[in-house]
């Protein structure tokens, strides 16, 4: 029972990680930028969610629609203003530009909101469904449902629409994408926008569960990297499986060993995966190598 409960909690937690990581992965796979400021976009989304709640009395699940749009636009601005000019610069420039962005956003939040932990109160925030003796938190279940929905929608979008195919095409074979008439720059823009919009959605889903504070992003971004590498860089759905895996590993490690060793264990797994199958456990092999990272 205990193990089952652990597994379920792990899977639900993994859903949250997956939601955050899918956006990071989209950006990584298509634009080929390691976005160290990804966690800060999550933080922004949660602050926005708080603002909608505190000033407009809007439930986080309702304001999610606006937040996704706002974050999408923020993503476009970031890509256009910061990322596009440095695409041809050396790796160190890319790393420190996004690291710089994360510092800027973190402290912007501190200046505006102070260091307070802000949270929303919803009637369902501590609701629990009991299933055969296993307790399942309602907001976590909702966010897991949203993750599943997003995975399906993203799948349909990427597989069945022309733009979706173009996004995959750019991540696989940039030059040929040009030759079939894809406006590659616009695809970058779109991918970055979708990536931040996804993390915006993640923020809305997290708001009933967590509080928001300026340095919140830092605690999620490294996990997101682990998830992405585990699932396979640029492999859009690998992030989903990777997220679930890390969630379960984290829960199990906490119960079996000690909660203080969770991070150690998943970082060791991360290193092992990097060494044994750097393309990620869930990649089809050469696929993510072709992504070029």
């Amino acid at each position, binding site marked *: 029972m*205990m193990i089952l*409960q*652990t597994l379920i*909690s*792990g899977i639900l*937690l993994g859903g949250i990680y997956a939601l955050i990581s899918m956006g990071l992965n989209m950006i990584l796979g298509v634009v080929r930028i390691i976005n160290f400021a990804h966690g800060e976009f999550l933080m922004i989304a949660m602050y926005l969610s708080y603002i909608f709640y505190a000033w407009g009395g809007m439930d986080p699940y309702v304001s999610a629609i606006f937040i996704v749009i706002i974050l999408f636009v923020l993503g476009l601005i970031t890509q256009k203003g910061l990322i596009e000019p440095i695409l041809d610069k050396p790796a160190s420039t890319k790393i420190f530009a996004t690291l710089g962005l994360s510092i800027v956003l973190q*402290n912007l939040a*501190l200046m505006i909101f*102070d*260091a*307070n*932990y*802000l*949270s929303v*109160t919803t009637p369902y*925030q*501590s609701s*629990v469904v*009991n299933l055969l003796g296993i*307790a*399942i*938190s309602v907001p*976590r279940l909702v966010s897991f449902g949203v993750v599943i929905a997003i995975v399906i929608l993203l799948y349909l979008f990427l597989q069945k629409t022309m733009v979706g195919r173009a996004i995959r095409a750019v991540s696989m074979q940039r030059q040929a994408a040009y030759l079939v008439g894809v406006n590659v720059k616009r695809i970058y823009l779109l991918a970055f926008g979708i990536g931040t919009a996804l993390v915006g959605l993640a923020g809305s889903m997290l708001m009933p*569960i*967590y*509080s928001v*504070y*300026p*340095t919140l992003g*830092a*605690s*999620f971004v490294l*996990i997101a990297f682990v998830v992405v590498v585990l699932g396979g860089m640029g492999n859009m759905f690998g992030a989903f499986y990777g997220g679930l895996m890390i*969630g379960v590993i*984290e*829960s*199990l*490690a*906490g*119960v079996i060993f*000690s*909660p*203080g060793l*969770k*991070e150690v264990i998943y970082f060791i797994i991360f290193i092992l995966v990097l060494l044994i199958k750097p393309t990620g456990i869930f990649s089809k092999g050469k696929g993510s190598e072709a992504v070029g990272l």
Partner: protein
Amino acid sequence: MKKKWMLVVVICVAMVLAACGDETSAGEGSEEIKIGTVFPLTGSLALLGGESFRGVELAVKEVNANGGIDGKQVKLVNSDAVDADAAQSEATRLINKEGINLLVGSFSSGISYAASEVAERNGAQYWELGAVADNVTDRNYQSIIRVNPPASYFSVTHINFIKNVVAEQIGKELKDIKVAITHEDSAYGTTIAKEAEKLAKEEGIDIVTTQSYSSTSNDLSSVILNLKKAQPDLVIAVSYINDAILLSKQSEELGYKIPILVGSGGGHTLTDYQKSVGDLANGVFNIDFPQYEINTDFTPGLEEFMKLYEEQYGEKPQSGHSLSNYMGMKVMIQAIDDAGSVDVEKVREAAMNIKIEKGTTATGWGVEFDSESGQNTAGEAYLTQWIDGELLTVWPEEVSIHEPVFKK
């Protein structure tokens, strides 16, 4: 070769800067008493660091409004000590550049260590008003004075509470009571947990499990599942805000009702905690510095402080950190007043001679310094409880305004 020229220039510039530095530090002898503050105002410790600083600010405002010390106004020279490194550098700046030899801080033990090292080395004096790690005063530095009670005092209250109140309430022998400890693994959590474990052992209390975790952790489900497995009668939690919230929310989510949860300051005191977890806060105990819903007969001056705070900042205090820093600062001011100088040795001597009875300060603490370590031995941590959304002081009796409530 040309590269080296650049270095010459850079070094020269640095030297010129250095020369300028010399001049400014020479300027002293004004009609002000300058005191340097070392608090984390940004970064991850900013929330309570800022709250602590406000207490210091208010005490100074108050004394200045009353004519200052011997007619001299007190001027705070502030610094932002985000972490131990910054504290080291800022303390050095305050002492050597601003020519200040009295420092106060700091809320965080790491910052306290770093700043007090600098004070010791530079012949300055460092007053700690909030950090709780015992080790800060265990070093017997002549430069350090601490007003607030350290972590081990928290643990004493924890164990006394179990011994004197809980045992009777749940109808168990002391040795049959199962206690679990969860703590975040920074210095604050670790010290209190370690002390509590030690004291519990002395009292023969059974510690069934100790769970440590990183305070930046996003998920405490494994901690909670481990608690669930251990089936304790009482859980001592040492948490910052984020993990305090997670602990309450997630145990609810995982269908585990903690029988008696006793926090240890930090997160469980904060109104943010109560706001985040809502009704789940009700019934949660907490051991901390004095809070505001307290028997004011025992804490004269508290109401004035509250008024002053709201006037100044337009909101209610987040936690008792501001209050204890306020009280500590007043002790410091008194010491300077008694010494009639800012000479560190005189101030220390004056401080060692201060004797204040318990129940006569805004925190209810008394003052009696241990001349070896510089630790105030008359301070104490109180037990509060969230009752209907309010953090009421419930134990010990002299400060309580409500009986401890136990859910059956």
